[in-house]
């Protein structure tokens, strides 16, 4: 009796290319690429069907380190190239890799449109609040007052919240992860992958050279439990070292507040339960800023809708069905013609 050889299971290593990684030692990107390789191994993503498409910047070197298909494109345009690729072959599983400058500054327009169109791909934004590859200028997510080569007196522009931007653009899946949470991050990527449509993930990533420690105020080990909240659908929004802090709606006003369970007769029943299909809640969670609030991490919003490429191909298929075996010769002759003898 013949025994079928079971398909070889791909391991984390199988997703790593043979190229030497050229990020600075200690860069948060290392942890993100590992998280990605783990996520892909967990879901056994076929190498040949997976494509990483990136723009320009430190993050955008990412495709070179993956053993899948990869396209390192031009500054800000990865979303547009990925849209064309997905339209041309909807069977491909596409990850767009971008940074805060690439995605929100030069590529802001394309990010907006890929999200509102709901093209089925995963858009991972590595946010380190700085331009790394060009040596440290402030970025659209830098805090006001950021001193950089181009802003020696401190930056003036108000920063943009990537997650709020994504929600505003109509993204149907919005999540956050942290480079320093290597167990949590692959789970976020897996959720993003499972969602049909444009999945937007902001990863808080530390730039060890130009913006070291910019997220320490909520990622450092000693404060993380009190300054982060890992949200999960259907679970109460509880956080804190003693798991006694919770988030609830402030009575009489559309605003969140932090309460302590056990104080002022507050019980767990008073705490908001996370509903990832509720866009208003997602928006409020996205707006929470440290240190007043904990920073919301995890899947803030997930509410699938028809994907763009499916709708595009439905139209193509309908035309193909209405005009089977189209003949160009016939088409050219379908209007008024005349014969010269």
């Amino acid at each position: 009796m013949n025994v079928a050889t079971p398909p070889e299971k791909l391991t984390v290593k199988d997703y790593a290319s043979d190229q030497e990684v050229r990020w600075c030692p200690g860069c948060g990107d290392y942890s993100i690429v590992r998280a990605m390789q783990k996520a892909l191994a967990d879901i056994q993503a076929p190498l040949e069907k997976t494509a990483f498409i990136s723009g320009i910047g430190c993050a955008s070197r990412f495709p070179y380190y993956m053993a899948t298909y990869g396209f390192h494109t031009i500054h800000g345009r990865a979303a547009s190239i990925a849209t064309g690729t997905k339209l041309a072959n909807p069977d491909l599983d596409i990850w767009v890799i971008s940074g805060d400058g690439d995605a929100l500054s030069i590529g802001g327009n394309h990010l907006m449109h890929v999200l509102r169109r709901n093209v089925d791909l995963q858009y991972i934004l590595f946010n380190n609040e700085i331009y790394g590859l060009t040596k440290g200028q402030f970025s659209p997510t830098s805090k006001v007052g950021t001193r950089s080569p181009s802003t020696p007196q401190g930056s003036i522009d108000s920063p943009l919240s990537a997650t709020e931007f994504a929600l505003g653009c109509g993204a149907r899946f919005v999540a956050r992860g942290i480079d320093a949470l290597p167990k949590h991050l692959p789970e976020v990527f897996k959720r993003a992958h499972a969602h049909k449509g444009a999945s937007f993930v902001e990863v808080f990533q530390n730039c060890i050279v130009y913006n070291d420690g910019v997220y320490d105020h909520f990622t450092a080990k000693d404060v993380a439990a009190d300054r982060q909240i890992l949200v999960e659908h259907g679970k109460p929004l509880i956080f804190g070292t003693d798991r006694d802090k919770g988030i609830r709606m402030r009575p009489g006003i559309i605003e969140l507040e932090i309460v302590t369970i056990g104080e002022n007769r507050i019980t767990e029943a008073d705490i908001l339960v996370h509903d990832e299909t509720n866009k208003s809640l997602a928006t409020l969670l996205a707006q929470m800023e440290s240190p007043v609030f904990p920073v919301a991490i995890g899947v803030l919003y997930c509410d699938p809708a028809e994907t763009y490429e499916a709708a595009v191909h439905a139209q193509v298929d309908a035309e193909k069905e209405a005009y089977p075996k189209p003949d160009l010769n016939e088409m050219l002759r379908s209007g008024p013609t005349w014969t010269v003898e």
Partner: protein
Amino acid sequence: MEGSTAVAVDGTIREEVEDVVVRFAGDSGDGIQITGGQFTLTTALAGNDLSTFPDFPAEIRAPQGTTFGVSAFQIHFGSREIRTAGDAPDVLVALNPAALKVNLADLNKGGLVVVDTGAFTDRNLKKAGYEDNPLENGSLEGFRTIAVDITKNTLEAVKDHGLTQKEAVRCKNMYALGLVYWLYGREREPTVNWLNEKFGKRPEIANSNIAAVNAGHAFGETTEASGETSAYKVAPAKIEPGLYRTITGIEAVSYGLVAGAQKANLKMTFAGYPITPASGVLHSLSKLKQFDIVTFQAEDEIAAVCAALGGSYAGTLGVTASSGPGIALKTEAIGLAISVELPLVIVNVQRAGPSTGLPTKTEQSDLYQAVYGRNADAPLVVVAARSPADNFDVAIEATRLATKYMTPVMLLTDGYLANASEPWKLPDVDAIPDFPVEFLSDTEDFSPSHRDPKTLARNWPVPGTPGLEHRIGGIEKSYETGNLSYEAANHQKMTDVRKDKIDRIAGDIPNQEVTRGDAKGDVAVVGWGSTFGPITRAVQKVQADGHKVSHIHIRHIWPLPKNLGSLLKKFKKVIVAEMNTGQLITVLRSEYLVDAQGLSKTSGQPFKVSEVEEAIREILGK
């Protein structure tokens, strides 16, 4: 009008003429383009050769009655070969004072003016900027005139069909059409059929328009009977036998892209962004999805070219179309396509510039942009269409070269060719040779950098193929492995191979033919693109006087045909006529050290035959 004799046809005495130029002009809401389209079809059915040119305002709904709201449609038809829409009209149909004011100066001396006196109200005269009525103050002296209250007569003709006043007035273009039909002995039946089909759901509108056509025609018969106006006959032209249709450049380029994709055995991913005068390509292809075409209206020009390139990356034919300002935005992504060596067809429907320039007016001023306009050494292929129908063939050629050589190809056409139409002898698409693309599937010794030793085209491994996973990008890559390489010698080699690949294409395109005339002589008039018509007619006219003048029209702008340099050296003098300040001439001088002289025009209007003719005669006289 050239050549005329009197003949009697169908009871009407008709003066026979060789060719005629008629210009219909009116307010942009007067249905001028439809009138022109109907006259074109009927003229084609009558067996004349023809060429047309619409001239519409940039504003969609310009204020009624103003000079900048005038829309015009010119048709040149004849019993001989017709290659241009005509230098100057013999007949001007002016449906309002503004139309008369804008167009009268172009009319040939002794030409015929047909005016709607009903539109010459004080209000309209004022809007057109007339201080007094040109119908009464001698402005039309030296012209023949048919002054008729078209508005009133149309209202009268359609009054029994139950239209509103507004709808009834809109039939006046059909009255004017009927009158011009009578003037040239045209059949009304094709237009009657077209009206019945178009307004099938509103028979009262169809019947009113038909009544207007008939009333205009009847008016002609009446004036003829009274001896006020003579009618004309234009005999059928000697045209190559076959099945014909009329086609605009936009239609031809769209169908050509479909044919090209079929010949390459590829699906098409077309991405565009609305821009005048290129949007028509997006519109046409969006109606041809049954040919396995995905069309995508992107958020901007950059996204459009990027999506097209993404489509090529995935193994379809990526195509984008735009005009100069949009092409400028696409430039960086075109450089990426050159670097990663993927096929891409970029259609540039040129318009007058710089910047926004004159969006609805034509020019050929993007040749530098096409050939040279990118950062670094970034060669690509440039081809140019010479006539509306020629866009079909050139689009197929662009696709062939893009897919065979894994390179972007820019197809230059222009606003004139896009909107102009001409009769097209329908090709048998099945008889056009195929050039099927083969994707790489062999995983042995794989590198995305491996090239065909003859064409130097790199192989095309398409995502989705097991075992060919690889990374590409805009960073310089190793000639051998395709991996990133910052090595000096490798960059030299890659720069050389990118150039060499494009240069070698010269061996895969036809030798330059002499379009008209001998392969040596006193003067060669060199052109490219839409100057074809006026140059060839001008050369023909000068040749008729016994001069040794030839016309050379270049389709392959980059790389240039192999024999072009030696061909040009066989002429004592070379004139390069182009609708820019001298771009092809720079290329020719630089490539061949040829002492060419330029003939330049940048008025937003095509060359007149007479302008080219004068330039040739001038150089001959020197």
